[in-house]
C-alpha cells in the first residue's frame, strides 16, 4: 500500500511543531520555576533534569523532521543565494549553536546539584534556561519568516 505523500508531509510537519513546543515550552517552564522566590534548588534541578531528557529527544525529532520538511520542497527548494536561502542558512547555524551550547548546560546540571550553593545554583539555572528560551525564540522567529515570508 502506497502512502499519500501529502499525508506524510503533514504528519512530519505536525511532529516538527510538537517537538518544538516541547523543547521551547519546556525551557520556558524551567525558567519560570527557577524564577519563583519560593522554589528550592533541588526542585528546580529535578524539573530541569526531567526537561533535559525531553529536550534531547525533541532535538533528535526536530533534526529528523526538519530534513523531512525540506524534502517536501523537492527540486523547488530555493537556492542558497536567495533571501529564503540566507534565512534558512542562518536558522541552521543558530540551531547548531543551540545544540552545541546545550551539551554543557545538560552536563552542568548534575554538577550544580552537588558542588555549588543552592542560591548560586538557581541563579545559574535562570541564566542557562533564559538563554535557551531566547535562542528558541530566535529560531521560532526565523521559522515563521521562512514559512510566511
Amino acid at each position, binding site marked *: 500500500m502506497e*502512502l499519500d*505523500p501529502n499525508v*506524510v*508531509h503533514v504528519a*512530519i510537519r505536525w511532529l516538527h511543531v510538537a517537538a518544538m513546543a516541547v523543547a521551547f515550552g519546556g525551557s520556558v517552564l524551567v525558567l519560570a520555576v527557577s524564577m519563583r522566590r519560593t522554589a528550592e534548588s533541588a526542585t528546580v534541578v529535578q524539573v530541569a*533534569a526531567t526537561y*533535559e*531528557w525531553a529536550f*534531547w*529527544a525533541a*532535538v*533528535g525529532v526536530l*533534526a*529528523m*523532521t526538519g*530534513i*523531512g520538511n*525540506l*524534502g*517536501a*520542497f*523537492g*527540486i*523547488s*527548494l530555493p*537556492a*542558497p543565494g536567495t533571501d529564503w*536561502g540566507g534565512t*534558512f*542558512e542562518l536558522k*541552521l*547555524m543558530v*540551531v*547548531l549553536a543551540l*545544540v*552545541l551550547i*546545550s*551539551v*554543557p*548546560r*545538560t*552536563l*552542568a*546540571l*548534575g*554538577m*550544580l546539584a552537588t*558542588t*555549588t550553593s543552592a542560591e548560586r545554583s538557581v541563579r*545559574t539555572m535562570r541564566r*542557562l534556561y533564559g538563554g535557551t528560551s531566547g535562542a528558541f525564540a530566535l529560531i521560532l522567529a526565523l521559522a515563521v519568516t521562512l514559512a510566511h515570508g
Partner: protein
Amino acid sequence: MSNDRALAAWALATFHATFFVLVFVLLLYSRGGFGATLASLNTLVGLGLFVALWGTTLVTTRRALRGVDPTGGSVDGRRLSRQAIRWGAANGLAFLLLIAIPLIIGSIAATPPGGNPLAVVGIATIAAPFALSVASVIGALSGLTLSALDLVLIGLARRIAL
C-alpha cells in the same frame, strides 16, 4: 549507570547524531543543488536512516563513555579519544550494515523472473571490503573529532557549574 551519567550519554549521543547530520545538510545546501538530491530520496526512508543513525550512535556512545564520567571531577581525555575512535568505527560499520542488509534483501526480492537473485550477493561480497573500510574510517574520524569537541564542552560545563 547513574541517572546523571545516563542523561549525559543520551545528550551526547543525540548531540553527535544531530550535529553530524546538520553540518552535513548545511554544507550540502550551501553548495547548491540540494533540492534535487532531496527529491530523489523517499521521505520515509530518510526518516528511517536518521532513526538508524540515532540508534547506533546511542549504543556506541554509551560504550565509548564506559569508565568515563562526563559529569564527574575529571575526564581522562586520552581514554575517551581511544574509545571514541574504536566505537566511532563500530558505529560506521553498524550504520552501513543497517543500510546494506535491507538494500540487498530488497534487490534480491525485486529480481525479475528469469534473473539470478544471487548475483546481488556476489556484487555485495566484492564491494563489502571497500565499503566496510570506508565506513569504519569515516566513523573513527567522526568519533575522534566529536570526542575532541566533547572534551571542550565537558570543560565548559565544569566552568559553568564550579
